[in-house]
C-alpha cells in the first residue's frame, strides 16, 4: 500500500531538513554523544572481557589464593586431597627492596618462585622479551614489564636487591607478563606506581636458599574443578593453613589485580548505560519539540496532501523519515566518534592493564545496537505527535488552527502585573501557555548543568580525598615497613637516621573481624595516643584519640559489618599467636581509603601479648636531608618497603589526575553540547512560533531591541530557573556517582567545589549566548512583509 518511493515527498523532506539543518545537527550531535559513549564503552568492554578471559584461561590463572607464614610442602599435598581442588601450586613469595638508580628511596619488589624446571602449573608467565630462566639458573630473574619499562631495564641488565637481609645483583633474563599482575598495585598502595613497585620471578632453588624456605612454601594457588564448592574449599584451606600462620584464603574475585579489573569492567557497563540514556532522552525531547513545531507549521500541507490522496501511513512515514534521517546522522557520527574514542580508551587501558595483547575490536552488534537506540529514541520522542498528525482529518487540517488561547498569567491573577513591563508580561504569558514544554526546557538545560557538575565533581572529590588522606590522617613523609615485626629498638634506629625530625611507631596486624554472620578480612592499625603522624578523624575532620580499650572502625568497615558504636565484634588476629578476642566498637571514624580498623597502640600490644613492637615506623623528614635518609634505607637488610607520601601523591595526581582531566574535558564538551542543543532548539522553535507576532509588533512600532527582549527574555527565564535546579541536580548526580563508585578500597566523598558550579554555569550561559546570538541575527533581518504575508 505505502510506496517507499515517494520521490517528491522525499524531496520536500530533504528541503525541510536543510532549512532546519542547524537544529537537526544539534540534535544529531547530542545523539552522537550518547551513541559514541555506548560504542566506546561496549567495544572496550568487549575487548577487555574477551582478552581477559582468554589470558586467564591460557595462562592458567588460579581460582583460589592463600598466603601464610611457612608450611612444609606436605601440607600442600594434603590440600590437594580437598574435594574440588584440581591443581595445587605451592610457591615462595617474598618481599625485597631494590636500589634503583634515579630513585632516592628503595623501590619495593615482590619476588615469586618459579619451578626449577618446566612451566609453573598455574599463573604462567608470558615472555615479552629475552628468555625464560634456564633449569636451575640461580643468578637470574624475570621482571614484570611495567617496572622494566619505567626503569628502562633490558635483558642482560643487573638489578641490586636486598632480599631477606642479603644484597644480590641477579641478571635480568627476560621481561614478562602475568595474569596475577594485569594491574600491578603494591600492597597498601592506592594506584599502580610502576616506578616504585616491581614483580620479579626467581627459580625456586635460588629463592628458597635466600629466604630459608627449603622444602616449604608461604603462598598457595589452587585451580578448582568446575563443580567445586568454593566456600568449602576456602574453609578447608583455612583450616589446614591456620597452624602455619595462614592468612585467610580468598577466591579469584578478591584477588587484587582481578578485583580492580572487574571494577573497571563494571564501570564501563555503567558508562555504557547511563550516559547514552541521558543523551538519548535529551535528544528525544529535542526532536519532540522540533517535530511538534514542524507539524504545526505544516498543518495545511498535511491536509492538502491528504486531499490529494495521500493516506495516514504516507504522512506518518514522511515525518518518521525526517526523524530517521536525524537519528541515522547521529548514529553515524556517534559510530565514527565511538570507534575513535574506543580505540583511544583501549589504548589507555593497555597502559594501565598489562595484557599480552589488547586491541580494540569492532563488534558489529554494538554499532547496530547504537543505530537502533538512536532510532528508538527518535521515534519514542515523536511517535505521538506523528500519529496525531497523520490522523488529522484533511478538512480540519486545512483550516488554520484556532488562535492559541491565552489567559492572564499567575502574576496578573495575583495582581502583581504593575511590577512587570508589557514585554515582560508577554514573556510570562508565553511561558505559562505551554507549561509542559516550559518545564521540559528548564529540565533540559538543568540536565546539561547537572551532567557537567556531576561529572566534574570527581576531580573535586579526589582533591579533597587526597587532602584528608595526606594532610590530616597520614601525615608522615615516609612509612618504613619492616620485613619482620621488631622491638622498640627499631624505632630508635630510625629516629637516629639523618633528616628524621619525628618518628612514631607503627603497628599493623592482619585480622579477621566477625559480627554475627558477617565477616571481613582487614587489618588493625595501632594509633599512638597524641601521635601527630598517623591519626584517625571524625566526620568533622577532627583528630580522634582511640580509647584505651576497644576497637575503632572506619566507616566503610562498620557498614560492611553492619555494626555501630557499642556493638561487639569478634576479632581474630592472623599473625603471631593468632589471639582471639571480642571487642566493643567504641567509635566510627571517617576515612576514604580501605575498610580499616584501629586501636590504641598499647591496647593492640596487649591484645598481641607483646611489648612495644613495631611493624613500621612513620617519620617526618627534613626535606634537605631526605636523600641521605633514603640512601641509608636502601642498604638496610630489615626494611621491606618505604612508602613515600610525596611520591604517592604525585603518582596519584599524574596517573589518576590526568585521566580525570581528560574525562572532564569530554564532559565539558558533552554538557556544552546538551546545553547548546536544548537552548538552541528552544530558541529556534520559539522564534518560529513567534515570528508572525514579533513582525506584527515590529510593524506597530516596537524596536528590534524590544522584540529581541521578548523572545530572548523567554529563554532567559528558562536558563535562570534551570541554574539552581541544575546545580542541585548536579549535586544529586555527584551523590549517586559517589554511591556507585563506593568500593571496599576507597570511597569518593560527595564534594563539589564552588568553582565547579561556576564553570558549569559558565558553560550553559555561553551556550545560551551563542544560541541567542544566532536568533538575534534573524530578528535583525526579520522580513516584515513576507512574514506577515505567509500564513502558518
Amino acid at each position, binding site marked *: *500500500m505505502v*510506496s517507499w518511493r*515517494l*520521490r*517528491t*515527498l522525499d*524531496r*520536500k523532506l530533504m*528541503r*525541510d531538513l536543510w*532549512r532546519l539543518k542547524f537544529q537537526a545537527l544539534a540534535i544529531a550531535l547530542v545523539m552522537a554523544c550518547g551513541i559514541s559513549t555506548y560504542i566506546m564503552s561496549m567495544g572496550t568492554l568487549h575487548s577487555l572481557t574477551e582478552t581477559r578471559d582468554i589470558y586467564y584461561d591460557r595462562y592458567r590463572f588460579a581460582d583460589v589464593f592463600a598466603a601464610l607464614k611457612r608450611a612444609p610442602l606436605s601440607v600442600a599435598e594434603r590440600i590437594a586431597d580437598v574435594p574440588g581442588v584440581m591443581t595445587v601450586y605451592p610457591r615462595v613469595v617474598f618481599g625485597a627492596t631494590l636500589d634503583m638508580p634515579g630513585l632516592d628511596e628503595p623501590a619495593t619488589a615482590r619476588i615469586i618462585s618459579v619451578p626449577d624446571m618446566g612451566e609453573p602449573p598455574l599463573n604462567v608467565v608470558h615472555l615479552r622479551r629475552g628468555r625464560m630462566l634456564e633449569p636451575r639458573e640461580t643468578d637470574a630473574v624475570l621482571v614484570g614489564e611495567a617496572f622494566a619499562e619505567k626503569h628502562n631495564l633490558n635483558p642482560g641488565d643487573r638489578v641490586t636487591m636486598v632480599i631477606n637481609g642479603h644484597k644480590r645483583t641477579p641478571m635480568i633474563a627476560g621481561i614478562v607478563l602475568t595474569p596475577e599482575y594485569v594491574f600491578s598495585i603494591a600492597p597498601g598502595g592506592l594506584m599502580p606506581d610502576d616506578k616504585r613497585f616491581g614483580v620479579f620471578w626467581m627459580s625456586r632453588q635460588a629463592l628458597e636458599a635466600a629466604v630459608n624456605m627449603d622444602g616449604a612454601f608461604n603462598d598457595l594457588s589452587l585451580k578448582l574443578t568446575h563443580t567445586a564448592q568454593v566456600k568449602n574449599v576456602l574453609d578447608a584451606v583455612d583450616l589446614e593453613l591456620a597452624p602455619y600462620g595462614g592468612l585467610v584464603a580468598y577466591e579469584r574475585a578478591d584477588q587484587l589485580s582481578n578485583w580492580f579489573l572487574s571494577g573497571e569492567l563494571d564501570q564501563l557497563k555503567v558508562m555504557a548505560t547511563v550516559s547514552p540514556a541521558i543523551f538519548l532522552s535529551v535528544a528525544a525531547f529535542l526532536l519532540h519539540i522540533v517535530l511538534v513545531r514542524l507539524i504545526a507549521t505544516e498543518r*495545511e*500541507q498535511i*491536509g*492538502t*496532501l*491528504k*486531499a*490529494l*490522496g*495521500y*493516506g*495516514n501511513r504516507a504522512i506518518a512515514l514522511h515525518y518518521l523519515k525526517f526523524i530517521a534521517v536525524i537519528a541515522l546522522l547521529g548514529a553515524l557520527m556517534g559510530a565514527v566518534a565511538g570507534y575513535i574514542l574506543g580505540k583511544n580508551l583501549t589504548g589507555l587501558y593497555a597502559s594501565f592493564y598489562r595484557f599480552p595483547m589488547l586491541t580494540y575490536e569492532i563488534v558489529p552488534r554494538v554499532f547496530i545496537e547504537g543505530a537502533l537506540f538512536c532510532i528508538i529514541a527518535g521515534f519514542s520522542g515523536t511517535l505521538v505527535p506523528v500519529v496525531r498528525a497523520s490522523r488529522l*482529518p*484533511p*478538512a480540519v487540517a*486545512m483550516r488554520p488552527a484556532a488562535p492559541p488561547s491565552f489567559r492572564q498569567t499567575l502574576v496578573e491573577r495575583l495582581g502583581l502585573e504593575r511590577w512587570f513591563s508589557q514585554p515582560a508580561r508577554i514573556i510570562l504569558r508565553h511561558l505559562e501557555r505551554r507549561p509542559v514544554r516550559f518545564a521540559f526546557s528548564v529540565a533540559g538545560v538543568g540536565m546539561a548543568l547537572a551532567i557537567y557538575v556531576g561529572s566534574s565533581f570527581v576531580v573535586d572529590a579526589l582533591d579533597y580525598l587526597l587532602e584528608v588522606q595526606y594532610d590530616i590522617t597520614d601525615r608522615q613523609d615516609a612509612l618504613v615497613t619492616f620485613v619482620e615485626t621488631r622491638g622498640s629498638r627499631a624505632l630508635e634506629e630510625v629516629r637516629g637516621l639523618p633528616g628524621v625530625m619525628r618518628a612514631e611507631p607503627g603497628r599493623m596486624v592482619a585480622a579477621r573481624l566477625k559480627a554475627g554472620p558477617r565477616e571481613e578480612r582487614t587489618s588493625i592499625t595501632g594509633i599512638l595516643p597524641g601521635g601527630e603522624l598517623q591519626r584517625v578523624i571524625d566526620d568533622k575532620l577532627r583528630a580522634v584519640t582511640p580509647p584505651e580499650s576497644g576497637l575503632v572502625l572506619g566507616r566503610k568497615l562498620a557498614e560492611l559489618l553492619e555494626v555501630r558504636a557499642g556493638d561487639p565484634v569478634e576479632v581474630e588476629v592472623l599473625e603471631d599467636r593468632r589471639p582471639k578476642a571480642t571487642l566493643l566498637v567504641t567509635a566510627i571514624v571517617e576515612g576514604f581509603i580501605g575498610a580499616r580498623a584501629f586501636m590504641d597502640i598499647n591496647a593492640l600490644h596487649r591484645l598481641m601479648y607483646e611489648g612495644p613492637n613495631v611493624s613500621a615506623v612513620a617519620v617526618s623528614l627534613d626535606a634537605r636531608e631526605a636523600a641521605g635518609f633514603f640512601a641509608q634505607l636502601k642498604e638496610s637488610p630489615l626494611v621491606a618497603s618505604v612508602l613515600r607520601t610525596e611520591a604517592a601523591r604525585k603518582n596519584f595526581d599524574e596517573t589518576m589526575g590526568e585521566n580525570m582531566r581528560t574525562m572532564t574535558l569530554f564532559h565539558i564538551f558533552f554538557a556544552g553540547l546538551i546545553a547548546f542543543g536544548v537552548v538552541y532548539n528552544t530558541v529556534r522553535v520559539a522564534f518560529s512560533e513567534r515570528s508572525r507576532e514579533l513582525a506584527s509588533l515590529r510593524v506597530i512600532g516596537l524596536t528590534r531591541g524590544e522584540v529581541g527582549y521578548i523572545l530572548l527574555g523567554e529563554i532567559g527565564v528558562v536558563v535562570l530557573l534551570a541554574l539552581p535546579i541544575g546545580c542541585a541536580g548536579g549535586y544529586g548526580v555527584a551523590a549517586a556517582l559517589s554511591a556507585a563508585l563506593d568500593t571496599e578500597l576507597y570511597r569518593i566523598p560527595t564534594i563539589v567545589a564552588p568553582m565547579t558550579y561556576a564553570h558549569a554555569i559558565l558553560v550553559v550561559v555561553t551556550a545560551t549566548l551563542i544560541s541567542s546570538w544566532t536568533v538575534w541575527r534573524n530578528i535583525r533581518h526579520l522580513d516584515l512583509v513576507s512574514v506577515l504575508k*505567509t*500564513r502558518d
Partner: protein
Amino acid sequence: MTPVFDIRGLTKTYAMGETVVRALRGVDLRVEAGELIVLLGPSGSGKSTFLNIVGGLDVPSEGQVIFEGRDLSSLSEDELTFYRRNHVGFVFQAYNLVPSLTAKENVDLVTEITPNPLSSVEALSLVGLGERINHFPAQLSGGEQQRVAIARAIAKRPAVLLCDEPTGALDHTTGIVVLEAIADVNMRFQTTTMIITHNAAIAAMADRVLHFADGRIAREEKNASRALASEVTW
C-alpha cells in the same frame, strides 16, 4: 444514465462545546457527468462543508453520497483516500501548494501516485504555465499559484473537479484566466466540476447554479447556455 453523484439527505453537525453547529441540514442533489455546477451563498451557509463531504475530505453526520453507485460513507479510511487519490481533484482558495516544492514537483505529488496521469509538464502547459515549471510557489504570483493548483488537480484526469472559491484571492483579470482554465478542463475532459464562489456573475458560466442558505439548497437555476469565462465580469 446513472448520475456521477446521487446525494441524499446530507446533514453535518459540529459539536462546539455546549453549542451545536448545524452546517448542513439535509441536502439532496443529483449531478450528471460533465456538468459544471456553481455553488453560491452567504458565508457560513455550508458550501465548503458540502464540497468537503462530496470530495471525501469529511464525512457526513447523516445522509449519503453515492459516487458512481458506491456509497462513500461505507468506505474505510483507506478506501476514502483512494477515492480522493484516483477520482477527485481539489482547488482551494488558498492554493495550498507545498512551499518547499517547485510547480512541477507540486504536480508530481499527484502524478506519482495515480494510475493514469497526464505528465506534470503537460498538465502545467494546459493551464499556460509550461514555462515556469521550476519556480517555487513563493516565486509565482497568486494567479500562477492557483493555476499550478489546477494543474495539480487535473493531472490525475479526475472524474470530478471541486473548487472552493478558486478566485477568491485573485483580482479580476487573473481570476478570469483561472476560470478559463477550469472551464477548459471541464469541456476538454468532460470533468464533472463544482465551483464555490461569492461572485454571482461567475454563475453565468455554469450549467446549473445552486443557491445555498442555512445549510440547505434554497434555490436551483439551470442556464440554457453557458457563458465563456472571458465574458464574465465582476
